[in-house]
């Protein structure tokens, strides 16, 4: 009974309190203008990148489907959201939901035809889709073509951003921990074996794409409603690459790793504003070195949990068992 109550505190109350505290502290900093706009921009970029990295991780890390066109989903969400508010005049909520849904459907469109593709072919196909989306958007005058959509109202505030980040992490983490998530992991480990064991690989692959895409769309809509202007060039391969680096660095398969890497890389990128050329070279080197020396990234597929922190203090039977299972 003792341990049950402890685990209750650990797993539910502490995180909730922690999250609420974080929200209120930052909200205070913003409202009281202690956090100047420069840092605010970085903060919002961090939030958006977290959503992007965690959603890509679901496709790449958890389900093992190598997708490098994630920016395509983001752009679909961004444009959908912008069209809703700027062209159609709907409220922000509608824009967000529309972005989420449309991007998710887009994920369906990508997931189904690419079912038969593996590894490298899948990667190139997703890259191709990302480029096709960009070229198509470039040629549709309704969304401004190359000029994009300007004058998007700044409706993304800290509440929306924080809420979205929390929801993304909670939903995806719960998905991973559920039997659906285990099915995806099985697909990643050995697709043929999974199929033979009765896992509906088709369903789960498509599901992973759709959910990952949907959250990328959400990130896109948040991005659009913060940065005033979107153009097709914002969502090119370099953007997909940025997200990929975060996932790789953090550890494909670890949500907390992706969160950490997203925070780390966004800050590094901001700090390197003065070092123009070196930044990309650094990113490329990071990618190569991580892949060669430590391909599992920072966290491998372990998760940062209170249990892990507890390891430093004492080992108790329950923690040891739980760790073994989640490893």
């Amino acid at each position, binding site marked *: 009974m003792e341990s049950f109550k402890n685990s209750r505190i650990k797993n539910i109350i502490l995180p909730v309190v922690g999250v609420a505290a974080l929200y209120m502290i930052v909200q205070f900093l913003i409202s009281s203008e202690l956090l100047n706009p*420069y840092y605010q921009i970085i903060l919002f970029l961090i939030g958006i990148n977290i959503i992007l990295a965690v959603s890509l991780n679901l496709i790449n890390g958890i389900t093992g489907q190598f997708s490098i066109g994630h920016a395509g989903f983001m752009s679909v969400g961004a444009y959908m959201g912008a069209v809703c508010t700027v062209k159609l005049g709907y409220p922000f909520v509608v824009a967000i939901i529309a972005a989420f849904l449309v991007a998710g459907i887009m994920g369906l469109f990508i997931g189904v035809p690419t079912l038969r593709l593996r590894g490298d072919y899948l990667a190139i196909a997703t890259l191709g889709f990302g480029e096709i989306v960009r070229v198509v958007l470039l040629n549709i005058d309704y969304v401004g073509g190359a000029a994009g959509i300007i004058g998007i109202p700044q409706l993304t505030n800290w509440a929306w951003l924080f809420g979205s980040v929390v929801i993304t992490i909670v939903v995806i983490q719960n998905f991973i921990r559920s039997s659906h998530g285990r099915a995806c992991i099985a697909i990643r480990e050995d697709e043929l074996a999974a199929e033979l064991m009765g896992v509906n690989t088709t369903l789960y692959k498509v599901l992973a794409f759709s959910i990952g895409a949907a959250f990328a769309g959400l990130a896109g809509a948040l991005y659009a409603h913060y940065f*005033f*202007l979107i153009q097709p060039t*914002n969502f090119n391969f370099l953007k997909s690459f940025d997200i990929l680096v975060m996932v790789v660095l953090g550890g494909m398969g670890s949500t907390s790793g992706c969160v950490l890497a997203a925070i780390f890389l966004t800050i590094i990128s901001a700090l390197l504003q003065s070092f123009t050329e070196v930044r990309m070279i650094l990113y490329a080197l990071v990618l190569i070195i991580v892949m060669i020396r430590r391909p599992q990234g*920072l966290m491998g597929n372990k998760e940062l949990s209170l249990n892990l922190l507890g390891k430093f203090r004492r080992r108790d039977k329950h923690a040891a068992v739980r760790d073994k299972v989640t490893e």
Partner: protein
Amino acid sequence: MLKCRKLTAILIGILLVVTMVGCGKTSTNTAKDTVKIGLNLELSGAVAEYGQKGQNGANLAIEDMNKKGGVLGKQVEAIALDNKSDNAESASVAASLAQKGIVGIVGCMTSGRTEAAIPVGLQYKLPMISPTGTASEVTVDKATNAVRPYVFRVCFLDPFQGQVMAKFATDELKVKKAAVLFDSSNDYSKGLAQAFETNFTAAGGTIVDKEAYIEKDKDFKATLTKIKAANPEVIFVPGYYNEVGLIVKQGRELGITVPFTGGDGWGSPQLVQIAGAEALANTFFCNHFSASSTDPKVQAFVQAYKAKYNSEPDGFAALGYDAAALMMDAVQRAGSTDPAKVTEALAATSGFQGVAGTITMDKNHNPVKAAVIIGFDNGKEIVKATIKP
């Protein structure tokens, strides 16, 4: 576990070093008592070339001014940050620059990036001068038709250029049929093509073919073959010199003899290198300035630029120069580094002698300036005409 800690330690180490270097840079900047101008430019990424040229021009302008004693008795200093040709970065850069005690921002080279930084300028009430952002949206909000209070530019707009070139086609070349080949991945090119079309057809001409290409394309033969088959009397190519050079060259190779015309995106010494002197005969384009102009101010600029950067300046460099020079001139006229006063001075600019023309700001913060039509004589630019608005 050990490896993970090692990697984490290395990463934290990198973070610390970069933070220190990044912070270190800023602290040395604020140590001296100088007039600071922020540069929000595309120094890396897809359009890094334009940003770097613009930076060259701006830095030269500041250097020249410092040699003459600076502004308000103080030396001028440029703080340049790279917006990576990305919109979010541009906003972030503008916000970052705003923390550094600047009087205003020179930037960006492209309309999209400039537009992305508008909310920041508004928030901090900092004036922004875009050297080459040519979309109308940059200074005027299309939805409300109101001028944006803190945004200015030193280049003329796409609609004006399109008008000039259409007039040139009907009045000077005396043609009735035109083909248009524009860069569809670029709002500047699209806008120019649109303006040309509108004005050309209004004057009684017909567009026999309209084709598009994408930035960084190298092969235009297929498209040019199609255009050739439509038998135009002039081909309007409102793109940037990288692609235009190739287009003109390949067009001539295919046997196209009619004139090619274009806008200020052609303006670069590289054009001759790419297209070759022979191909450029019978081509004309409209620009703010020409490096071969006999105007002493222009020549002084060209010589100084060559001496410092070992290459001839193009339109981006010239306009970067003017943007920075105008900013400093406004500070001088305002008599203070208060951004609000500088903004007022900018709006009141009249008869400012830049290297790329004389600038008078209209009520929409756009410069009223003349355009020059440039042709080629054996690969050298020659000014054919000057068109006043």
